[in-house]
């Protein structure tokens, strides 16, 4: 037994000494080799690549800023027309007097279009306007003008001031169906602008959202990766049916370097099925647009 025990301890000692000598030799070799120039490695060429990348960092931010500004301007130019209050306030003198006492007001009125005249006469300057009130235009016109108005009746539009129906802050919960599985997302949005056209309501929002991605490690452990996006959202809804489209662009603030790295942008287009339900495709572009993750998203909120 003793002999066996001795043999065992001897073999352990031998193993330990082998371990330590392997480690020591390896460490020493690495230390020496670190000072030896790497074959086929040109530090200057690599520096050129590195300095190019250094210059691109600033450009990436500028490009992103410009792209966001350009898309916002395009949206504004295409759709946004701020409510025109000026025509209510600016009142043309109904009967401008000249020195001789002769009235010329009727003459000047006939040169204006009947639609404009109707608007000018209908709304007094000091008229109080509440949010829920609709202004009814009742023109004071001469018989001739009335005849013209009847003919152009279809062209007269109602001036409508709709209420701000949605709250300033809103939240949403979202599920993305990706190739890798389900990824939940929660976010908060702040309304920054709202616009009304004859048929549609357009809403502009800024907000943040957190998307949770799951990965499986080699030991089958589930790892959670929270990703926070800064979002810009544009929604166009039919005023009567409350159906329409929502487009959203998001910029990843905290790339983890594993699933998403470098510049990561998310773009989505949702169909508003109801007031609180949307569905649509979403694509996440990452690694400076080298990789993309498409998904189908269901949004509640």
């Amino acid at each position: 037994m003793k002999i066996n025990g001795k043999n065992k301890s001897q073999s352990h000692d031998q193993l330990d000494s082998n371990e330590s000598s392997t480690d020591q030799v390896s460490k020493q070799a690495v230390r020496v080799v670190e000072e030896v120039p790497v074959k086929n490695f040109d530090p200057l060429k690599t520096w050129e690549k590195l300095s190019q990348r250094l210059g691109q960092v600033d450009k990436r931010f500028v490009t992103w800023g410009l792209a966001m500004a350009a898309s916002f301007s395009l949206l504004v130019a295409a759709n946004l027309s701020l409510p025109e209050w000026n025509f209510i306030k600016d009142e043309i003198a109904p009967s401008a007097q000249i020195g001789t006492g002769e009235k010329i007001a009727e003459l000047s009125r006939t040169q204006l279009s009947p639609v404009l005249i109707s608007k000018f006469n209908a709304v007094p300057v000091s008229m109080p306007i509440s949010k829920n009130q609709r202004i009814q235009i009742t023109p004071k016109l001469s018989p001739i003008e009335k005849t013209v108005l009847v003919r152009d009746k279809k062209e007269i539009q109602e001036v409508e001031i709709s209420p701000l129906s949605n709250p300033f802050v809103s939240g949403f919960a979202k599920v993305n169906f990706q190739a890798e599985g389900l990824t939940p997302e929660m976010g908060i949005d702040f309304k920054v602008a709202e616009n009304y056209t004859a048929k549609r309501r357009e809403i502009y929002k800024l907000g943040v959202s957190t998307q949770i991605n799951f990965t499986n490690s080699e030991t089958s452990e589930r790892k959670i990766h929270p990703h926070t996006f800064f979002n810009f959202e544009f929604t166009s809804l039919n005023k009567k049916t409350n159906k329409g489209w929502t487009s959203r662009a998001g910029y990843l603030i905290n790339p983890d370097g594993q699933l998403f790295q470098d510049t990561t942008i998310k773009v989505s287009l949702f169909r508003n099925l109801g007031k609180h339900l949307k569905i649509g495709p979403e694509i996440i572009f990452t690694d400076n647009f080298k990789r993309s993750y498409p998904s189908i998203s269901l949004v509640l909120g």
Partner: protein
Amino acid sequence: MHFCKATFFNLQALNKQGYISNQNIILDDSQLTDLCKAGDSMAQKALYEKYANKMMRTCLRYLNDEMEAEDAMIDGFMKVYSKIDTFEFRGKGSLEGWIKRIMVNESLMLLRKRKMDQVELDKVHHLSSGRENAESQLMEETIVNVIQDLPNGYRTVFNMYVIEGYSHKEIGEKLNISENTSKSQLSKARASLSKSLTEIGAI
């Protein structure tokens, strides 16, 4: 001609000490850190020149592929420059240690990516066959090559534990494996390496 050659080698030696070429000054790590924090491009270059070779070697030890090692090193230096504000100089070697950790992380990230792309086997095979043709190299270089030729998992754990000094817990966290897996990989790596080093007469 002889003079020019000597000057060139002197400059190369100086660059490894943090030499800023247009100002004829040699900076230590602390000064280099401060200048890099201030965004000085010459200091950034001096820092790169000082550590490029070492860091390339570090990345090569993990990735075993020159192109990928270069990519990892470039990404690593990008991180160094962008995060240098968060680095606190704590004496000699702290900057080098910090940069090395960043390089190791970048290499591990690339390894993960490579695992997803599943192209590793071809590349490793290609590299090892190329290495066999190398005629003259230092014994130390041969030993490092033997380490680099270890299978991916063994090599990573061995490098992290023995060379970089990470604990099994840290390795587990970084590689998403359990501590026991890390220990077992290290043990297998040591056994394989010991055999190879004995064969080449290193131990």
